[in-house]
């Protein structure tokens, strides 16, 4: 990607400078576009590949359609990102290119222009100076010439018409002097010549090379003045002729040359004759044919530079004829020197040429003359030996040829001469007869060289810088947009994730919806099954076996229903919707029930289930009993699953009380464990303890200890995960989903506790957990009767399971009862013999011998007890049931029946025949295994009571025995409720009157099973108790004296009993409650009104109920139901009407009350009771116009401030707990599901109205 982008950037860069000129732009643009298209195409195909790959990965587990949308979305976003990226890059490239070009252009063009101007000025100046010098030379030459002419004229006029030769000589002498003066005054002059008409020549010549000065003259002898004079005059008319003649004539003359002292002009040497060839350039008459000055360039063999000579005629006085010609020759040498000097400073070449092209002066040393056969000649510029001049001249000629621009002014800046570029400038100097052209050639490099180099460097730097910037920019853009595209990708992913989550939530919603339906659908048939079973149970014509079976079925159904509820609850736990109840319950009883239940399961194994709860555990705690039981049920069932032999112990103790005083009695490992837990708790925060103190919470610790296969230490954490099992083979062996422990942990955490697997000595698993539950106000209840000790009870535990026996005897010893433990029949017999025979005869030494030492010691201890009451708890397992020996064994035990009370621990499946036999033998105390403290206490209390009663009233005792009898037998099947009822029963035993009453009741309602009878009576008692509290029903007092003081306790127990277990058992028990409240209520009335005519049905007599229900059928049904029970019903069709009805009646009441107040004397009690128009409202949740929730809210709002509170019961078809929560949230007091369960409804209504009144 990056490389490709770079490439693209490169290309765009290379194209963009091209594109900047306007003419090339369109083609460049199209090119650019093509390039883009190509890249785009490539990239998109590439992208498609990658995205499809990404999609594949994505699609591994999710539906395809789901992401199609997202991926196309992604793709389009990729495109857009790419296009944006491209656009930004192109723009950047163009910008940078433009900037570069502009910068470069401006800097360069301005410098160049100014430099050019400067260079031009320089060149002009340079050229101007030699020209000026030239001009000066010309001027001075002209001046000298003119001066000579004027002087000559003056002299000649003076000596005009020379008379004699002497005069003539004198004239020439004067002329010579004058000429010398002029010659000497000008050092630059090369020569001055005076040519007279007669052919006489006088000339001064200065040889600059040898620095000699010469005087040159022609032979004067050959000429006579006479001869000349007429000639002059005569030939005035024809100058031409004269001139030619004179020159030719002079050829024959003899020339002399005299070296002179250059300063004084004195003759230095002898005059020597020289040939006329050596003559210097003598201006002749021919040069001044028209009598005006003339210029020409001449050459001389004495100098190597051209000479400039001027000639002027000298006229006579009359100004008619020319008498002489004056010629002045000046070397142009100095011009050349000046040029050289100039060029020395500024490199380059300067030269001057005549118009024809002859070099006059150069700045080089190249010779200007060329020797030819006819003497030295001027060199043409094009033939110059100097290369540059030659090339420059050639270039000019080539370019311009003969057609020079006007005035010959040329300025060329980039003439290429040789390898270098040069400036060539030429100027034209228009002298009369001698036009001069000046040319200056300067290598361009000299002036612009540095500048151009700089400019080039600058350009290079600029270009490279811009390229760098472009590249960096592109990279930056790439990175930036990459980030953006990544973000977009992430966003797309996020969107898809959100989508998936939404779907998941939706499906979760469906799940809960499904569960809502399921809960309803599952409960209904189960309720039907249970109901039918109830009907069947109440049938008279069942045999005992059938009855037992049906009861079993009912129990199982209840369990199944509980299970169903649990499943529903689990889903709630899973979804985190679980809300823990906060109700009061008897933890001990719950756990006992649990152990009882599991003892049935366990019976098939050779496993002992032991419950070991400390006495300091609070009896009543607040919390969610169902969840607590669930926790232990899961743990214990788990243990049972993996334990094939040994024991399962459920230990429990309270953490913050003085537990540690007892720890000494526990095994060492356990003690350690406790310490560990304690430290851990301390760890966990003193704040927790503080909190628990403040909020009246207790930390309850539990241990579930089994001797099963154990859990590998590495799995100790993971077993609490969902669907996790310690060993994969467990599923095969034991089944299960692996959810149990997970749920346990969730629940424990929810209750503010912790659970973990703890290291254990020996095989098996030790799970330890603690729960944070709040104590009830009344705190720890001392249910253990103190009088046990005072009765000198001695307990002999003949139990099979060693663990249970050990724990039990420990406990007994703790509360101060001596106990003995034996584990088999032989031991039992020996101990019995020891205890009784020896006590009697004091000589059973033999028997004693067979006992082992510790037991013997114990036996001896017991023997010290005075007047003991023996209680012997015998496991039925000790009897040999496989053969008939057990009868023998029973007979043996019979011998002791008078001295001790036997309590039999029955197995769940103990045959009826044995039970019958036992009963026949008078062993009425039978309890089911396992044995735990409550049962023990119950047994002991029964025994003590019996002892007392035996001494007091035999008749009553028998009645009670009968009761007990019945009860205990039923206990064997009703294990579920047994634990709850045992203690009740025990307390019940106190009340003779009650027993009598129960008896009567039983006679009356023969169809009812005994346990139900018990329950009923209990309920009745409760009811009575409630009524007792209810001051308005004072007539109950009649019954009151008959009741013992324990009634209140019973009532509370009864209440407690209804709290535990799941809703169904609750509802079930409450159903019983209903029945009994139904039955008892009228009885109360019967007492109060002394009229037995009232039917039992009228449970709701006198209640005014407002029914808000839109479905006519339901309305009708409910109305009839309620009316049948004696309630006054007002039915309305929706919530609005309900609110209206209530308000209207309320206001009416208000008025009435006001009037009553005005009356003043009326009792206030009735008034208060009447102040509510209805005792209760039954409110359907879903109704038109205003639904139940709204209506309830409205009602509660109107109630606000009045202190009134009408109980509102919701009626809903939804059976989920969330609906219940919603109902309770809006201010309803209770909750009934449709179809209306008659009994449940009554019980709910009654509880609420009772509460209200």
């Amino acid at each position: 990607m990056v490389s490709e982008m770079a490439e693209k950037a490169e290309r765009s860069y290379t194209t963009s400078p091209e594109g900047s000129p306007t003419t090339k732009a369109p083609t460049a643009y199209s090119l650019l576009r093509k390039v883009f298209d190509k890249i785009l195409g490539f990239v998109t195909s590439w992208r498609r590949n990658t995205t499809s790959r990404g999609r594949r990965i994505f699609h591994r587990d999710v539906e395809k359609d789901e992401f199609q949308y997202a991926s196309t979305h992604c793709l389009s976003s990729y495109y857009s990102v790419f296009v944006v990226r491209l656009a930004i890059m192109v723009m950047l490239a163009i910008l940078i290119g433009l900037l570069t070009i502009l910068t470069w252009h401006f800097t360069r063009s301005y410098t160049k222009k100014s430099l050019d101007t400067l260079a031009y000025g320089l060149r002009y100046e340079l050229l101007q100076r030699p020209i000026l010098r030239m001009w000066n030379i010309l001027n001075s030459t002209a001046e000298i010439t003119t001066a000579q002419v004027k002087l000559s004229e003056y002299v000649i006029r003076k000596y005009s018409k020379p008379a004699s030769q002497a005069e003539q000589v004198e004239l020439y002498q004067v002329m010579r002097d004058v000429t010398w003066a002029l010659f000497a005054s000008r050092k630059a002059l090369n020569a001055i010549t005076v040519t007279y008409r007669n052919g006489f020549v006088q000339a001064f010549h200065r040889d600059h090379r040898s620095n000699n000065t010469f005087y040159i003259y022609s032979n004067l002898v050959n000429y006579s003045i006479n001869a000349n004079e007429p000639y002059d005059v005569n030939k005035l008319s024809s100058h031409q002729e004269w001139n030619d003649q004179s020159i030719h004539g002079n050829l024959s003359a003899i020339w002399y040359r005299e070296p002179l002292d250059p300063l004084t002009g004195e003759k230095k040497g002898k005059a020597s004759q020289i040939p006329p060839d050596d003559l210097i350039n003598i201006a002749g008459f021919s040069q001044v044919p028209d009598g005006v000055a003339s210029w020409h360039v001449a050459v001389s063999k004495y100098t190597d530079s051209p000479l400039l000579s001027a000639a002027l005629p000298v006229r006579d006085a009359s100004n008619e004829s020319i008498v002489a010609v004056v010629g002045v020759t000046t070397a142009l040498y100095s011009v050349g020197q000046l040029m050289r000097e100039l060029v020395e400073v500024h490199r380059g070449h300067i030269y001057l040429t005549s118009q024809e092209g002859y070099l006059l002066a150069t700045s080089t040393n190249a010779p200007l003359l060329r020797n030819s056969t006819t003497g030295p000649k001027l060199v043409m510029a094009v033939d110059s030996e100097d290369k540059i001049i030659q090339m420059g001249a050639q270039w000019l000629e080539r370019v311009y040829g003969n057609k020079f621009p006007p005035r010959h002014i040329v300025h060329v800046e980039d003439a290429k001469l040789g390898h270098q570029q040069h400036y060539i400038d030429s100027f034209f100097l228009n002298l009369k007869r001698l036009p001069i052209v000046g040319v200056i050639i300067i290598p361009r490099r000299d002036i612009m060289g540095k500048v151009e180099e700089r400019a080039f460097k600058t350009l290079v730097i600029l270009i490279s810088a811009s390229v760098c910037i472009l590249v960096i920019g592109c990279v930056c853009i790439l990175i930036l947009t990459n980030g953006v595209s990544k973000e977009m990708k992430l966003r797309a992913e996020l969107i898809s994730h959100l989508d998936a989550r939404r779907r998941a939530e939706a499906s979760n919603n469906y799940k809960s919806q499904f569960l809502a339906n399921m809960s309803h659908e599952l409960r209904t048939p189960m309720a039907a099954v249970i109901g039918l079973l109830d009907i069947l149970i109440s049938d008279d014509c069942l045999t005992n076996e059938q009855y037992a079976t049906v009861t079993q079925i009912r129990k199982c159904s209840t369990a199944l229903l509980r299970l169903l509820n649990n499943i529903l609850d689990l889903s709630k736990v899973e979804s985190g919707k679980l809300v823990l109840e906060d109700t009061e319950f008897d933890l001990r009883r719950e756990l006992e029930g649990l152990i009882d239940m599991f003892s049935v399961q366990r019976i098939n194994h050779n496993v002992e289930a032991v419950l070991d709860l400390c006495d300091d555990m609070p009896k009543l705690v607040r919390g969610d009993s169902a969840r607590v039981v669930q926790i232990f049920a899961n743990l214990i069932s788990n243990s049972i699953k993996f334990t094939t032999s040994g024991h399962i112990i459920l230990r429990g103790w309270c953490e913050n009380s003085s537990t540690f005083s007892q720890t000494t009695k526990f095994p060492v490992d356990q003690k350690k464990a406790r310490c560990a837990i304690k430290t851990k708790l301390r760890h966990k925060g003193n704040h927790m303890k503080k909190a628990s103190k403040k909020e009246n919470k207790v930390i309850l610790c539990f241990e579930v200890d089994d001797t099963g296969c154990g859990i590998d230490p590495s799995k100790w954490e993971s077993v609490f995960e969902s669907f996790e099992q310690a060993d994969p083979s467990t599923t095969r062996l034991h089944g299960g989903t692996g959810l149990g422990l997970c749920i346990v942990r969730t629940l424990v955490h929810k209750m503010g506790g912790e659970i973990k697997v703890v290291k254990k000595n020996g095989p098996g698993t030790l799970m330890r957990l603690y729960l944070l539950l709040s104590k009830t106000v009344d705190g720890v209840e001392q249910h253990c009767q103190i009088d046990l000790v005072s009765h000198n009870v001695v307990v002999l535990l003949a139990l099979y399971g060693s663990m249970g026996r050990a724990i039990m005897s420990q406990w007994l010893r703790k509360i101060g009862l001596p106990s003995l433990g034996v584990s088999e029949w032989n031991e039992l017999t020996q101990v019995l013999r020891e205890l009784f025979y020896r006590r009697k005869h004091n000589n059973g030494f033999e028997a004693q011998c067979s006992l082992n030492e510790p037991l013997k010691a114990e036996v001896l201890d017991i023997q010290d007890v005075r007047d003991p009451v023996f209680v012997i708890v015998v496991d039925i397992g000790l009897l040999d049931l496989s053969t008939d020996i057990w009868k023998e064994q029973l007979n043996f035990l019979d011998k002791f029946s008078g001295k001790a009370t036997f309590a039999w621990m029955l197995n769940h499946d103990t045959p009826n025949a044995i039970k019958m036999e036992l009963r026949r033998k008078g062993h009425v105390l039978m309890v089911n295994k396992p044995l735990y403290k409550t049962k023990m206490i119950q047994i002991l209390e029964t025994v003590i009571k019996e002892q007392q009663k035996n001494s007091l009233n035999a008749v009553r005792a028998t009645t009670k025995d009968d009761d007990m009898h019945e009860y205990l037998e039923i206990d064997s099947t009703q294990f579920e409720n047994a634990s709850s009822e045992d203690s009740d029963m025990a307390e019940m035993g106190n009340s003779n009157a009650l027993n009598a009453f129960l008896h009567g009741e039983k006679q009356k309602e023969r169809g009812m099973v005994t346990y139900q009878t018990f329950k009923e009576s209990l309920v009745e008692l409760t009811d009575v108790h409630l009524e007792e509290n209810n001051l308005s029903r004072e007539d109950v007092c009649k019954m009151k004296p008959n009741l013992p003081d324990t009634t209140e306790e019973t009532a509370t127990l009864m209440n407690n009993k209804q709290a535990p277990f799941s809703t169904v058992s609750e509802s079930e028990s409450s159903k019983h409650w209903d029945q009994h409240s139904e039955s008892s209520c009228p009885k109360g009335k019967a007492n109060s009104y002394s009229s037995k005519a009232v039917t039992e049905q009228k449970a709701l007599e006198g209640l005014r109920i407002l029914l808000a229900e839109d479905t006519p059928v339901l309305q009708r049904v409910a109305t009839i139901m309620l009316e049948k029970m004696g309630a006054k019903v007002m039915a309305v069709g929706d919530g609005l009407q309900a609110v209206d009805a209530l308000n209207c009646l309320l206001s009416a009441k208000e008025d009435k009350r006001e009037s009553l107040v005005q009356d003043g004397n009326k009792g206030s009690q009735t008034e208060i009771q009447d102040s509510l128009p209805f005792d209760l409202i039954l409110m359907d949740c879903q109704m038109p116009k205003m639904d139940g929730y709204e209506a309830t809210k409205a009602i509660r709002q109107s109630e606000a401030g009045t202190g009134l509170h009408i109980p509102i019961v919701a009626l809903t078809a939804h059976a989920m707990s969330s609906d219940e929560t919603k109902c309770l949230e809006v201010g309803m007091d209770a909750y009934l599901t449709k179809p209306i369960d008659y009994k449940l409804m009554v019980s709910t209504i009654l509880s609420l109205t009772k509460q209200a009144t």
Partner: protein
Amino acid sequence: MDGVIQLQRQLVDYTASLFHEGFLDEQFNQLQQLQDENNPDFVVEVVSLFFEDSERLLNELAKALEQQCVDFKRIDAHVHQLKGSSSSIGAQRVQKACIAFRNYCDEQNTEGCLKCLQQVKHEYSLVKTKLETLFKLQRRVLAAGGSIPKPI
């Protein structure tokens, strides 16, 4: 007297079959239990109330489902009512059909709703015939001088 007994047995059998086939459930028994000398025709009254109500609701439902844009909320409310009333007389199968109906309603599935409406109608007419037959039998028993056996 034999005829009466036979009629009574027939009635019992028929009622049992209704329960057995799932047309009725426990709720109907409760209903019958509510009937006494104060409300001698309670069951018939309630059931005819149910018939009226159900017919009205079914019409409403049919109408609502014919609409261009189906108002599922309203339909849901109607079905809920129908479910409530059918469950309170113990017309189990109607109630079940209603539950399915409501599920489709939640899904906003018009097709499913129409199908369910047909099913509900079918169940309703079935239960109606059955109940009418039952009442006819009861009347005949009463006319023959027998008493209607109370449900257990």
